């Protein structure tokens, strides 16, 4: 079973704060994704990547940066956090894009006060 590990599990910050969410997958998957989950919206794609050094814009990218430093590691950066970014964030990976099953991490709950 593919393993996707997110850290931290919970994070509280203040408006204007700087936050980095981390994700590591250990199955050499090419694709990695960052989603946010909000009531009434389901999961919405923020950014994704198909390899180290690659970054693609998702559907709700405003206010977020991301970086794929290695095959295993994908980071989501909020440089000036706002209360609207309070959400549950999920990282996922897949072998070869969205036509393959995605493996999800347990999520990071972020609160921006």
């Amino acid at each position, binding site marked *: 079973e593919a393993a*996707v590990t997110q850290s931290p599990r919970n994070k509280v910050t203040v408006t204007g704060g700087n936050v980095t969410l981390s994700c590591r997958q250990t199955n050499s998957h090419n*694709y990695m*994704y960052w*989603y946010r989950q909000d009531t*009434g*919206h*389901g*999961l*919405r*794609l923020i950014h*994704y990547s*198909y390899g180290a050094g690659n970054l*693609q814009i*998702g*559907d709700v990218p405003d206010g977020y940066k991301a970086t794929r430093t290695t095959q295993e590691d994908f980071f989501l950066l909020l440089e000036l956090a706002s209360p609207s970014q309070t959400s549950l964030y*999920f990282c*996922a990976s897949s072998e070869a*894009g*969205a*036509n393959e*099953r*995605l*493996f*999800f*991490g*347990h*999520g990071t709950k972020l609160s921006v006060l």
Partner: protein
Amino acid sequence: TQTVSQSDAHVTVFEGDSVELRCNYSYGGSIYLSWYIQHHGRGLQFLLKYYSGNPVVQGVNGFEAEFSKSDSSFHLRKASVHWSDSAVYFCAASITMGYKLTFGTGTSLLVDP
């Protein structure tokens, strides 16, 4: 672009009942459809997928889904639910060879023991 709609936000059934969770999509071309389950406090887990061939696909734990091109639907069914099936269920869609998986807003299934 593809869209996914799940019309029922909440469904409640008794243990042993059958259940159908509805999913409709809109996209004019070939589409890849899948269902995921999210237990409380966990990440999403893959249940099943459809791309072509037999419109009825089997998944884990007795779940199956049926694709209908005429109805633009991909409903999830289970003949006899167990209390452990209580979770949120997400339908998702991607275009062929696509990189983005688009999720519906989810259906919360509560199984009364």
